[in-house]
């Protein structure tokens, strides 16, 4: 279901969010759901933008953090880190939602119908949210595998 990205071993990807540029149009959410499911709906989006006040916006998406809280929290070992992405093994997942709760970045949702975790997979290396953002508020950067604070 998820696509892996060929990565150099020392670097890992991060979708960077520019608060100043984001206009809260949520085109990223729609393009994400459309890219993965050919349907439009924010419940199917792996990226979420929330507005808190006139100029404060927050972006929630998998950060590929070092601690991989989701993997540790999964009671059935359905999650693994491969090629820069968290992958879900549907045959092992019991849809308990522990990974959703464990992610401090609110980067995981359960699919409303299949109840399987949906997590950013970088669209195979060319993220749709970045391509479609009319304000250039999202960008893909590469960080060292080990980062303090993530």
């Amino acid at each position, binding site marked *: 279901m998820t696509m892996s990205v060929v990565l150099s071993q020392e670097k890992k990807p991060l979708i960077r969010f520019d608060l100043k540029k984001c206009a809260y*149009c949520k085109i990223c959410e*729609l393009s994400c759901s459309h890219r993965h499911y050919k349907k439009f*709906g924010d419940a199917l989006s792996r990226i979420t933008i929330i507005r808190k006040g006139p*100029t404060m916006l927050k972006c929630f998406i998998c950060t590929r953090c070092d601690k991989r809280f989701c993997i540790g929290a999964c009671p059935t070992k359905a999650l693994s880190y491969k090629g820069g992405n968290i992958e879900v093994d549907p045959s092992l997942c019991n849809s308990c939602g522990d990974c959703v709760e464990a992610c401090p970045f609110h980067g995981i949702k359960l699919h409303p119908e299949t109840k399987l975790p949906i997590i950013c997979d970088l669209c195979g290396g060319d993220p749709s949210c970045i391509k479609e953002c009319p304000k250039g508020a999202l960008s893909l950067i590469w960080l060292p595998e080990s980062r303090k604070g993530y």
Partner: protein
Amino acid sequence: MKYSGYKGKILRVNLTTRKFSTVEVTDEFARKYLGGNGFAARHLFDLVDPKIDAFDASNVVAMMTGPFQGINIPTAGKYYMATKSPLTNGYFDSVSGGHIGAQIKYAGYDGILITGKADRPSYIFIDDGKVEIRLAEKFWGRLTGETQELVKEEIGDPNLCVSAIGPAGENLVRYACVITEYRAAGRGGVGAVLGSKKVKAIAVRGSGTNEVSDPEAFDAWMKWYKEEAKKVPALATGLPTYGTPALVASIGKMLGAMGSYNHKTEFFENWENISGERLKKEFWDKDTACPACPIACSKVFSAKSGKWKGAISEGPEYETIYSLGSMCGIDDLGAIIKGDSLCDEWGMDTVSYGVTIAFMMEAYEKGLITKENTGGLEFNFGNDDVMVSHIEKTAKREGIGNLIAEGSLRIARTVGGGSERFAIQVKGLEIPGHSARALRGMALGYSTATRGGSHHDPRPTGEYAGVSDRKAVEGKASWVIGTQQMTTIGDSLVQCHFLERLLGFTLTQKYVDMINPVTGFGYTFQELVDVAERILDLERAFNVRTGIRRKDDTLPRRFLEEPIPEGPSQGMYTDEPTLNRMLDEFYALKGWDPGTGIPTRQKLVRIGLEDVADRLEQGL
């Protein structure tokens, strides 16, 4: 359903009985009425006794979507509200940006019809198929921003979409609005009708989706849009850079057609102080957008210095710079930003409030309102303290605020002295910042619009662009009918009219080409024109049953008798004989009776509204 973009049902909420039900949206109904405006016009015509007071429990508030909500088509991140207006007493609709439109779709509905009256302050929470009427006593009296946050907290979802009314709606200010995020379903008092029903807020979330009928054709249209929009300066640079305040220079300075000092003139000498360029340079914080809109014409502005330092608002839009600014003789953008944010927070329409204050200022100047009425305050033009401080007083109906809350026409009828002449309204609705004197089409357009003084029934843009000669009388009726058809289709798709510069100021084949890939209707151009006429005539029929006739299709006396006194449009106005000539032509083209302004049976039958013709004949 056979067609895409629809969920096939509308939710009905009865607040008195606390019962919910659904009304089916059939393929035939969707094709005949398209969405938003069309769905609401049909249901309100069927459900609302037009003779009731707008605050009667049996009035209905419609909150609607069209086929475009929840997909990524540009400028459709909106929702549509309609009711019988407490300001005009007629059919009234107001469209606003906000993510709640998409959420209604995702929750599985094409719209909501709210009737009855709750016994205690309440809010409606729609969570996919689950609907609740929850107590809102602890939110009653709160501002719109706080209310949205409190509802999100109570439900425990920071991403929840909430539309709320402010104290102005609770206290039945006749032009109280509904606020979603920072945008307003501003005009006509939909917020007051919700207030009369004791509905403080509507919260919606849905986990569903919306899809298009023909993905390939839709993708091709999206590609076409992206290429073509780059070639339209307003969409490519003007609106993204400055937003609507860019119009201050083009309308205010170049055309001299921006009402000032309650339309005693239309050339504001200090236009530069309130210009879009100045706003951008000195007040801009960030761009914001309605959902799914790449234009992002909305801006957050704040006052960084001066008397109103610290004032912050998403906006003001051009209309608010006109109403709170030039109309009141105020050239301090800080005060306008402050007023804009207070109107949003207390929950009232900036246009009607500002134009009403301007009316009060002229009445004060003429001695019709005195310090005795104003509590000792000097109510003079240019007084920004008065403009700002009376927002709260109006929302609370405190002191003279109780009068201001009634709108300019009702105040004129109270204070008398011939002041109705300079009450800048049509059918009770205050006129926005597009001149009925400098634009011939707006003279006829405002006169005949369902809502009265609204620039989203007829559109001024084509006359600004010179596509229709703003001075011409010949052919103006057909032009105005075309713009009204275009806005009605836009309001049914629940899509912003800013695409008019790309798709056409009047209905064109380009609208058909946008609609068909999404819905699968396979409309012809004539079919779409008929949809527009059907909706417009339903609205007119609603208003006819409230007593509206040809005599009501007119303008304030000031506009019919006093030419613009100065500036680039000096001398322009439309006198009564000219207006009548245009009206004759308008009614003839519409198929409305020339004496009464009532749609004829022949016309109604032609567009598939025989039952409406029957109702009109029975109910007059």
